[in-house]
């Protein structure tokens, strides 16, 4: 039990820092750039939904290839992977949707509008594919999933703060907005690359 807990924590920390989805693999970066500029979507609300979907899809993603469709021919496993993992995301989406519909939440409509964006994106699908490619077990799957969503929150907060600070006259006009944000993310990615010291597996 303690061993599992420590494995969970190690993989969660790995996904937050050394293998941060945004800074090392660029997963969800298009959504991130739109998220920090979009007042209609709350950062925390998006993150809570993303974390729930990541947590729910992690065990499903672990079981779906080996237990649900074990007899799948080897040549079809790779092309069918996105469809099967999207199926997991759909189940997670419906579960969260059911909870949102039943329980009395503040800003319910806003959450309902944000839920599809948090459920079907490169971050969720990318995490499942990474875990499958690396051959993670269930605990590692869960730890990496939770860590990825925490890492995404960290990236959103860092970029959000940077956008606020970089929106001033000392930044050349042609760099304001997306260009300077990309350069900033690149510098942070470089720092993480220097910290880990190796290229991640694609």
């Amino acid at each position, binding site marked *: 039990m303690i061993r599992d807990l420590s494995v969970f924590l190690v993989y969660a920390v790995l996904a937050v820092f050394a293998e941060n989805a945004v800074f090392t693999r660029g*997963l969800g970066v298009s959504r991130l750039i739109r998220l920090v500029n979009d007042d209609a979507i709350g950062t925390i609300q998006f993150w809570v939904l993303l974390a729930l979907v990541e947590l729910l899809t992690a065990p499903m993603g672990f079981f779906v290839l080996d237990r649900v469709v074990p007899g799948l021919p080897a040549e079809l496993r790779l*092309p069918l992977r996105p469809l099967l993992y999207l199926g997991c995301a759909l189940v997670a989406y419906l579960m969260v949707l059911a909870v949102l519909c039943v329980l009395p939440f503040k800003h319910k409509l806003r959450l309902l509008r944000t839920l599809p964006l948090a459920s*079907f994106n490169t971050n969720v699908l990318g995490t499942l594919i990474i875990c499958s490619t690396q051959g993670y077990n269930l605990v590692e799957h869960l730890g990496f999933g939770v860590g990825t969503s925490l890492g995404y929150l960290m990236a959103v907060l860092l970029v959000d703060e940077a956008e606020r600070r970089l929106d001033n006259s000392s930044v050349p006009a042609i760099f304001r907005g997306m260009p300077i944000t990309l350069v900033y993310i690149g510098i942070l990615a470089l720092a993480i690359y220097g910290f880990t010291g190796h290229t991640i597996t694609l």
Partner: protein
Amino acid sequence: MAAHNNTPSPAQMAILQRIQSDRIFMNNPVMLQGLGLAPIVVADTSCKNAVMLIAALALLLVPTRVLTVAVLTITGNRGHYVLYPFMAALIYVPAYLLLLEIFGTDLLLLGLYLPILVVDPLIISRNERTKLESATMALKQGLSTLMGASVVILLMGALREFLATGCLFEHQLYFGATNLLPLANQPSGGFILLGLICALWRYAAGVKKLHLTQEAVWK
């Protein structure tokens, strides 16, 4: 005194429409709208990867948009959020087998950036819109988005390959003692290079838009 009229003239409307529909330069989906950044920043490190990414996009983007519109017409636009990614994932199965036939094991160079194309905003961003487009419009916009994204993918792939290895399509062009910018084929280099090109692109697009708008005022 006459009230100030903010309604654009027909000439200005035509210019605005021209800017909106120019997905290659003035309203490029990558440079202006920030779509499809993940594969470009990480996997688009050489001309070979760029060609594979473009081929994958060509097989996924237009069919996904057109077929989803066909299904949404039947469902009365219900389920648009879910249908776009699922349609892309369904089309991905034959597309992957075809790509594997064409490129062989080189396809593995794209890693997870090939399967995640099915949820990439370049392909499914239309699922956020509540208004259903026509099949003809889906075809036209799909093709123009594909062309705009392809230009950027090829440009970035060529630039990164040259800076990181001194080659273009694996042919040595630069024979210096050290490579120009080895960082260019890392994700961090991809972000920085894309940011720099994006700034220049937006500046050039802004100049062209201003020129067109001024032309419309004079008409």
